[in-house]
């Protein structure tokens, strides 16, 4: 081969040429940048949580992220994977999501348990990022809810709610310590509060229609309360209260194409239609749809939890089915179930259905035609 090199002209020597399959160029986007964008989208909701619940919320976020990162590194060490895997940012996202799913006042050990459930049981036993069929944060949330129901339903009022602001700041802002808050909670009356959904759950249902039925939920479902729910001034999990902040995050996610738009649309739409119908038939059984949309973890789930790319169907049609299924399950659990909130359960249940949904909602290739018996056209 004519390998002789002319004096001034340099030619490739060939020994450093890389062989690889086409294509030879790629996008600059990578998993890390995707995860960081997701974190960016979470920031408004996290900021709202700290605004409404103060230092305890910040602590919960800190613990969850710390434990998730540490546990991820430990697992990688044991499993012989490079610990640099943690750089992909998925553990950070899981940690933040987990924090958003916990009450604003949560003891560190609950955070640790949650991180264990999320990172190890929810993700790493299945092989790590991309392999887990269930949403790690939902696994942790459901596992904790079943195992530690009291800790997971220990709601404190948001800073805008309390009548006695001095008391409030003294207890919650100064003492960022669960045991102290617990003790304080026993002393100061009314320090814990109920979430709107648990109030709705505990309100006796009125099956027949009438004035009483229509007014059954008036205390928690009125224009003034809707506004409070919208900005996030209510009891609830750390990251789920502020619909406004979550919507901002959702817009970020959608604009970066990090979630499939079908999931939030069909999820929220189904919940609205379903609760609307039930409310129309039996107004005394459940509050109006707007109440359901604004309270609980629905918004958080619709934009951040259910849309997790790994555990939701990959095709658009599949995502729509997934969203509808989520909506129905959430409503059924909320209205008739034993738990006030059903989003985490419905996410796990629908996660289990994803392989079946994907079977149903396979893409049809361009120019697809049904295979016909061999015959010259």
């Amino acid at each position, binding site marked *: 081969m004519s390998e002789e090199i002319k004096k001034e002209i340099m030619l490739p020597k060939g020994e450093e040429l890389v062989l690889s*399959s086409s294509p030879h160029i790629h996008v600059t986007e990578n998993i890390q940048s995707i995860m960081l964008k997701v974190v960016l989208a979470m920031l408004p909701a996290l900021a709202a949580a700290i605004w409404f619940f103060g230092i305890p919320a910040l602590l919960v976020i800190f613990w969850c992220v710390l434990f998730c990162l540490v546990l991820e590194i430990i697992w990688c060490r044991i499993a012989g994977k490079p610990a640099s895997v943690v750089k992909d940012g998925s553990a950070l996202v899981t940690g933040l999501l987990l924090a958003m799913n916990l009450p604003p006042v949560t003891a560190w050990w609950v955070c640790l348990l949650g991180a264990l459930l999320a990172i190890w049981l929810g993700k790493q036993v299945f*092989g790590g990022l*991309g392999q887990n069929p269930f949403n790690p944060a939902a696994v942790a949330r459901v596992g904790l809810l079943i195992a530690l129901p009291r800790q997971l339903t220990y709601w404190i009022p948001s800073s805008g709610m309390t009548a006695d602001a001095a008391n409030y700041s003294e207890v919650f802002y100064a003492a960022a310590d669960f045991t102290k808050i617990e003790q304080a909670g026993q002393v100061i009356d009314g320090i814990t509060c109920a979430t709107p959904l648990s109030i709705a759950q505990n309100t006796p249902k009125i099956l027949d229609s009438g004035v009483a039925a229509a007014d059954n939920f008036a205390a928690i479902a009125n224009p003034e309360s809707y506004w409070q729910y919208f900005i996030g001034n209510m009891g609830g999990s750390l990251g789920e209260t502020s619909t406004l902040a979550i919507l901002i995050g959702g817009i970020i996610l959608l604009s970066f194409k990090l979630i499939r738009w079908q999931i939030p649309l069909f999820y929220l739409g189904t919940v609205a239609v379903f609760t609307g119908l039930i409310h129309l038939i039996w107004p005394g059984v459940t509050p109006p749809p707007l109440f359901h949309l604004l309270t609980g973890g629905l918004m958080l789930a619709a934009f951040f939890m259910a849309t997790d790319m790994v555990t939701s169907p990959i095709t658009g049609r599949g995502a729509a089915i997934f969203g509808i299924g989520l909506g129905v399950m959430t409503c059924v659990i909320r209205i008739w179930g034993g738990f006030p909130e059903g989003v985490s359960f419905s996410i796990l249940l629908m996660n289990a259905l994803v392989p079946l949904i994907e079977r149903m909602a396979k893409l049809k290739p*361009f120019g697809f035609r049904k295979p016909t018996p061999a015959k010259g056209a």
Partner: protein
Amino acid sequence: MNEQAINKDLKIVSFKGGVHPQKDGKILSKKASIQTAPLLERYQVIVSQNIGAPPKVVVSAGDEVKKGQLLAEAAGFVSVPLHSPTSGKVEGLVDIPGPMGVMTQAISILADGKDEWTELPASIDWRNSDADTLKKRIMECGIVGMGGAAFPSHVKLSPPPDKKVDYMIINGAECEPYLTADHRVMLEEPEKVLEGAAILGRAAGVKNVVVAVEINKVDAINAMMEKAAQFNVGIVGMKVQYPQGAEKQLIYAVTRRKVPTGALPADVGCIVQNAGTAAAVAEAVNAGIPLIERVTTITGEPVVNPGNWRLRLGTPISEALKLCGGVKCEPGKLILGGPMMGFAQRSTGVSVMKNTSGILLLDKSDVTQYESSPCIRCGRCLEACPMNLQPSALSQLAEAGQYENALKYNVMDCIECGACAFACPAHRPLVQHIRRLKAEIRNRTKKEIKK
């Protein structure tokens, strides 16, 4: 950058899916006009240059050949002859590295420096001749699809009689990043391309002849639009989106017809030919010149002077690179073709073939390493796939070795355009996985047929 404005009458079309590489590298060579390479001392013409049966060599060591003389004759219908790039002496058959990495047979010709033409066939008055004469000439001049596949052109022009063809599309999309060869040909020789298009139309008995060009080649579009009427050829603009020039996508963009799975363009009444091919056809019919040289883009960041060169078949890549002043630094990759579908080479000993549309060197910093992190099911590949497949699922099936299941995901429809792997944030080797699946499935069907 005072680009020419797009003509308002231009119809702009596109297809669904695809990707748009931000850094398309065309800027390196799109202003460089076509230069003709000086005569070399030696050419190594690879024998098997077309899809189908490789031609049968008719010369032997020691023979004197003239430029354009037959070196190998067509061996069957799906095969074309091969001609000598210059006059000189046949040194014999040698093994040189082929484009696919395996050694391949080539005819080595020592140039005598005279560069004398052999006696060429007479010009054909194509406006008054019948289709078969044209097709015969196209075949005799060894013309194949010069865009990449190297499929014999006369075969495409002869669809089965029961299929009514009413569209001839000349593919000037050149959607591959970095490549500008077709662009320059269309800009500098618009008449040749248009006349070739008209000839191809006549050879296929088709009235509707259009040249489809991506609208990032405004100057070429305008140059052709001026002359298009005189050849009764239409010009269509296409959105800049990869793979706009893939056959099925091109047909859909221009005609809105979908080529069904496993069918040929002729099934929907279309024939697609490359713009470079059209120019070669014009030369073959008007002057009887066989396909012995082609315009190739030599480009990439490491190349000192990227440009578009008219190279003879059998020019070794190393010689071609010398024309461009060599390289600035050691490149990370040598690719024949474009960056999306081209083949990585291990040495510069490969020689230019009929379908070598580009010689691309990539800088080491541009060589993307496959860290191949796991799929996070983001769905980017589904959006990118012009064939509406699910590359992520296919790649996982390939990894798990579930080859039969891949058929349920229509793996055989893949056109290997590389859009999915380009878009994958996990940098998974999706195309390689899919090629593996296809190879396995082909093997299995072969075995079944044997049984």
